[in-house]
């Protein structure tokens, strides 16, 4: 469910990620990447998901938090955390499922009620299928994923709702330099329907894509940057376009031990528009900033 039109001035940062990446390139060349183990690409691109599906027989527990910050006015902070179990039953399929928790801290935002709350907000499951696998002669890998989600707390407003979402993504990545430099691409289609406590029904969809570049600067550290272009519609069939936005920011992946890692990302909206509202940035359907922090333990 989206917030209505709000006002304020645009905000844009985050090109420093590209500069950092270029700076690290030189330093990273000094280390010999040929002696490094292959890396799982699923989590090295931030919000962009890589093609990796894990290893057959592998199980993983993950805590994955996404925070959204900043609307046109007032104070806005919302997080959604996935408590997730994932496993790989075959060399082509990965399955994930878990519970969602959310937190909202909203004050003085136009069209949103003030709220301070923490709640168990829903559940989700995800199926991933590796359609094209990387080999030593083919650097491209592609995975198809579907993720149905049920929410009892609205992601944006924190209000009690019934929300059904069906995220469909194509996750692709290319190994540009062996063990060293990777590019990731996502294509996203995310229709959803929400029933509010007042009995209203809202249908909407997000459509978009991303591109990311990640450099492995040490055997256990990957840094990079990503850009997302997202469009919002007030219909599942992508017929009622309401606005779009470009998000940009840095990414980080650290492997602490062979069985434990974290990934972090920060995206800032650098461009956006709301149809019928001549303001810069789209803060009705999207946020000013978003952050991702994920910890995982394999067993």
């Amino acid at each position, binding site marked *: 469910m989206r917030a209505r039109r709000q006002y304020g001035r645009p905000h844009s940062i985050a090109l420093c990620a590209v500069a950092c990446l270029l700076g690290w390139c030189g330093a990273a060349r000094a280390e010999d990447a040929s002696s490094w*183990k*292959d*890396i*799982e690409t699923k989590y090295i691109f931030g919000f962009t998901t890589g093609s990796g*599906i*894990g*290893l*057959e*027989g*592998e199980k993983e527990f993950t805590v994955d938090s996404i925070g959204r910050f900043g609307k046109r006015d007032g104070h806005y902070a919302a997080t959604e955390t996935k408590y997730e179990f994932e496993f*790989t*039953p*075959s*060399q*082509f*399929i990965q399955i994930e499922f878990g519970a969602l928790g959310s937190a909202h801290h909203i004050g003085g935002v136009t069209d949103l009620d003030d709220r301070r709350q923490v709640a168990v907000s829903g559940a989700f499951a995800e*199926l991933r*299928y590796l359609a094209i696998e*990387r*080999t*030593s*002669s*083919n650097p491209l890998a592609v995975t198809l994923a*579907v993720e*149905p989600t049920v929410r009892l707390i609205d992601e944006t407003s924190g209000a009690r709702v019934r929300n*059904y979402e*069906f995220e*469909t993504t194509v996750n692709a990545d290319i190994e540009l330099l062996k063990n060293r430099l990777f590019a990731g691409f996502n294509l996203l289609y995310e*229709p959803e*329907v929400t029933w509010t406590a007042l009995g209203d*029904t809202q*249908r909407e969809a997000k459509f978009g894509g991303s591109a990311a570049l990640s450099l492995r600067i040490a055997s256990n550290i990957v840094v990079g940057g990503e850009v997302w272009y997202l469009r919002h519609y007030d219909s*599942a069939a992508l017929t009622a376009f309401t606005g779009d936005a470009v998000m940009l920011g840095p990414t980080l992946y650290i492997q602490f031990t*062979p069985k434990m890692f974290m990934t972090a990302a920060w995206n800032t909206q650098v461009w956006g528009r709301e149809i019928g509202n001549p303001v810069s940035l789209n803060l009705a359907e999207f946020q000013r900033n978003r952050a991702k922090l994920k910890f995982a333990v394999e067993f």
Partner: protein
Amino acid sequence: MLIMMRKLTLAAVCAIAMLPVSPSQAQQASEVQVTYSNGQFQPSEVRAPADKPITVRVKNLDAKAMEFESKSLRVEKVVAANSEGVINVRALKPGRYEFYDDFNEKARGALIVQ
């Protein structure tokens, strides 16, 4: 909309159920054997034919467990001390697929598929 989402979920589950999740069951597998002793794979390179499922037998002669793992083969298996592990791998395209002991950084090997 809810009905549409249920149909989409059902369609996705059905589509994935029909995908080739385990092609290795369709053909006779070729077998390769690797021994693990003194923290090293012997031989460090093994060969197998392309486009045919492969069974990798890992014989751990050491007095402690090892974990045979490979990101490119997409398999991992803990092999207890003084025992044998069997890993079934899908039919592979020609190429070099590295494997290692996840408990021992220095133990590396490769499966060469031709």
